């Protein structure tokens, strides 16, 4: 049955995201908040996260390209990014933020540039995975199924 197959895919994808460290238990909190009163909560949060992150990444890129580099500004933006990735449960993005802040603190230009590249990679990775997850959910609901309850 189509719905069953989709539900299994969703469970597998979700489990792998947790097992591979892309998501931490904060994401579970978000799943708990999505209910009949808030059916689109995860979608909304992912959208906000994506928009906010893209804004921050653009600012970080600009700041690193402007001489002299304003490391305090970088630190402030990375702090914001760390906060939002933490709120959504994007564990790997958050981990890169921690390293990034350390580089900014020591005014390590090379380190900051590397960290920016890494953070962009991790962000696009989690973004596409979350989009895949949401798409599966949509497909399940469209096929008349219900979303599996995650442990």
């Amino acid at each position, binding site marked *: 049955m189509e719905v069953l197959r989709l539900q299994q895919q969703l469970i597998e994808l979700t489990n792998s995201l947790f097992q591979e460290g892309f998501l931490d238990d904060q994401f579970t909190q978000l799943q708990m*908040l999505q209910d009949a009163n*808030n059916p689109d909560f995860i979608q909304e949060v992912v959208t906000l996260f994506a928009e*906010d992150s893209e804004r921050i990444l653009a600012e970080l890129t600009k700041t690193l390209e402007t001489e002299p580099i304003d490391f305090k500004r970088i630190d402030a933006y990375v702090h914001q990014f760390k906060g939002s990735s933490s*709120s959504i449960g994007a564990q790997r993005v958050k981990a890169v933020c921690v390293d990034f802040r350390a580089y900014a603190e020591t005014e390590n230009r090379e380190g900051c540039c590397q960290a920016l590249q890494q953070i962009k990679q991790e962000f696009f990775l989690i973004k596409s995975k979350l989009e895949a997850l949401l798409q599966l959910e949509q497909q399940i609901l469209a096929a008349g199924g219900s979303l599996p309850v995650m442990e």
Partner: protein
Amino acid sequence: MASINEEFEVSKAFPPLEDLGRSGPCATMFLENSEVTSHTVTKSHQEAFVNPTSEVTEVHVLAVDDSVLDRKMIETLLRNSSYKVTTVDSGDKALEVLGIEGSLGLQFNISLIITDYCMPGMTGYDLLKRVKETSALKEIPVVIMSSENVPNRIQRCLEEGAKEFIMKPVKLTDVERLKLHISSPQMSCHVDQSSKLCNKRKFASEGCETQNTGRRTRPSGLTVVA
């Protein structure tokens, strides 16, 4: 008119103005250019507005955070726990809602303020201080949220009168615990005193730990320059 409304999100639980009977001590609301969307008025809500002497069972929380994502999170967490919520993105806007600035004539009956610590301009600590310095507001319990476990920061906030210091990301269990800080008017002095003592005792005995002993503390060597 007021640009505050763009960033000012009002909980859908507010009744349309025309449904308000006499204004009572519960709340007086003047919403200009409001973005209040359609919603239903619950019976207890109607009673609260029409009959000022009945017990107000619904609690209105003011949440302050400069992050749009975190505002969405805290709003949903609070609504999920049956609170009415108003979110604002800065300490200045919070003061306007609380009526200190009073420029828009907005007045809400706020039972609890939950604010982020690190915000540009007025920090959560600054907001806490302003609230505690204002006689009309100082009894409102204030809870601070922060993503960083900085012992000095926590201590300063508790000493300034914050009821609790919550580590971000905020969880449902944190929000459910907020009920402890909200007391009925008759009991306010007694409960505030004892919970204040509780805070200090816990802080003293657990060192840097926040109130939630189940929470892992995140050691942090970095202090954000707010």
